[in-house]
Every structure is written in C-alpha cells, then in structure tokens.
C-alpha cells in the first residue's frame, strides 16, 4: 500500500505518465472546445430573454466552474502536502495556482462583459461575481505567499495551510455574500441559473466544460513537469531524460 503511494508521489513516475498523457489531453481539449464553442456560438438557439449575449455562457461557466474546482483540488493537494509530505502535491499546488488565477479572472471578465447588455452596467455587486472576486483574492494571496518564501519546502507547507484555511472559508464566504446580496438588492434575474435549459444549450455547455477541464489537465501536467525539472535538476533520471531528448 505505502509502496504504491510512494510510487504515485514519485516525480519521476509522474513525469513519465504525464509525457504519455499530454498529447491525448491536448487533442481532447482542442476537439471538445472546438465543437462545444462553435456549437454554442453558431448553432445553439437564441435565448428568449437575453438574446445572443447569453452565448458568453459557453466560456463564462466553464471558467467559473474550473476556477472553483482548481481551488478545491489545490486544497486536496494541500492535505497531502501537510500529512504525507508528498513532493508531487507541493509541485501541483505551485504549478496550478497561476492557472486558477487566470481562470478566475476570465470568469470575472466574461461576467462583467455579459453584465453590460444584460444589466446595462459593467459591474454589479452580484453574489456570484463578488464571490469570484474574493476567490481571485484567495488565489492572489496563495501566489504571493509562495513567492515570498525562499525555501521551497517551507513555501509549499505555508501555502498548504493558507489554501486549507481558504477552502474552509469558501462556503462561509459564499453563504454570507449571498445573504448580503439579498439584503441589499433582491436579484432581478440571474446570469446563469435558468429554470430549464434546452439540450441544444446545455450539451455544448457540457462539452466546453469538459474541454476546458482537459485543457487544464494538459496545462497542469506541463507546468508540473517544468517545476519537477527545476527541483530535480541534479538527479540521474533528469539527466538521462534531457540528454536522451537531445540525441533523439
């Protein structure tokens, strides 16, 4: 049992798996995103309330969805870092935090642009947008803390504590922001929650969510590999790997 666990945590093992996995992830991501987004942009029917501006949903929702799940993934990795001190978990958190930040920014940006034709204003203190903004701060804090600590292991563990504290807070933040929102301005109509969405709308949405997930998988693998190279630079297997690639 522990043997398997350790093997799973071994950077060398991961490096090999990731190299084999990445072409498939990339191909899948591009294909799904292409189908989902073209379908959503050109073929899905117009929304009877919001018109064509709703087509932003096909990127807004995947970004928002992924932004949140990346944070959850980071928190899971943080547990592994703190409990088992697995190197790969440290690498994961460090590698994906900037990706999460960019995705959160995308969710915010698309939300704001979507808000203009829908609400007539760029920014509205809507519960979802506000929660996203706070998520952006949480990502920013984690990245800033990681940059501020020189020692890699200490940085990984400090960030792990922070991310865990953050993930405990996320439901509280979400709940309190929603409560605050109803207190100040009862929502007229929400951006995404539709009573029932026809299949021509949700199928492309699902495809683009899956596509972005695979894209995230590819990015995570690539960035983790880079981080592993930085950390394991002097090991024999890295040497063999880089010298073999030159020859081949």
């Amino acid at each position, binding site marked *: 049992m522990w043997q398997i666990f350790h093997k799973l945590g071994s950077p060398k093992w991961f490096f090999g798996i990731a190299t084999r996995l990445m072409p498939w992830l990339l191909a899948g991501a591009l294909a799904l995103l292409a189908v989902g987004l073209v379908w959503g942009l050109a073929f899905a*029917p*117009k929304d009877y309330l919001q018109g064509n*501006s709703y087509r*932003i949903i096909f990127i807004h929702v995947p970004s928002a969805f992924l932004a949140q799940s990346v944070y959850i993934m980071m928190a899971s990795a943080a547990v592994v870092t703190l409990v088992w001190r697995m190197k790969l978990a440290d690498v994961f958190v460090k590698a994906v935090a900037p990706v999460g930040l*960019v995705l959160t920014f*995308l969710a915010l940006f698309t939300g704001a*642009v979507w808000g203009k034709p829908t609400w007539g204003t760029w920014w509205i203190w809507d519960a979802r947008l506000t929660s996203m903004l706070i998520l952006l701060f949480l990502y920013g804090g984690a990245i800033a803390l990681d940059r501020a600590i020189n020692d890699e292991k200490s940085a990984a563990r400090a960030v792990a504590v922070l991310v865990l504290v953050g993930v405990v807070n996320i439901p509280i933040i979400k709940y309190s922001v929603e409560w605050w929102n109803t207190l100040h301005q009862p929502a007229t109509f929400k951006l995404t929650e539709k009573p029932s969405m026809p299949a021509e709308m949700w199928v492309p949405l699902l495809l683009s969510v899956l596509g972005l997930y695979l894209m995230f998988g590819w990015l995570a693998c*690539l960035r983790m590999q880079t981080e592993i190279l930085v950390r394991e630079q002097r090991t024999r297997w890295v*040497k063999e790997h880089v010298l073999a690639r*030159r020859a081949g």
Partner: protein
Amino acid sequence: MAFDSFTAFIAMEGHGPYVWTCYGVFFLLVAAMMVWSWRRHQAELKSCRRVHEAADGSGRGSAQPTPATFTRVKVSQD
C-alpha cells in the same frame, strides 16, 4: 445554424462586441497560458541539458573549464 448570414453571426443582433470581446479575451489568455507554459518548459529543459552537458564534459576531461588564474583581461580603448 442559428443565424441567417455571416454578417448576422458577427453582429449577433447588436450583442456582437460583447460576445466577441469575451471569446477573444478567453482565447488570448488560454493561448497565452499554453504558450508561456510551453516556452518555460523548453527553457527549463535547455538549462537542465546545459548543466548536465557541462558536468559530463568536465567529468570526461574533454572540455576542461579554464583554471582560475586571476590574470587581468585586456580591454581595448577604442
């Protein structure tokens, strides 16, 4: 196709600028992340290779690093 013509597709009944801005920024950022991550990966591979080639070279004695002599280097005055 939900649109009658390509022009209608671009215009999106007036919502075109919003939709296309979003998609534009989305593709730009995702592509930027991909390219940037890829280039950093290649740069790191290269630097690893250099480290190990240098180590190999000195190990075999083929390309000895210059010994420290602390001789002054001539700088031309032109």
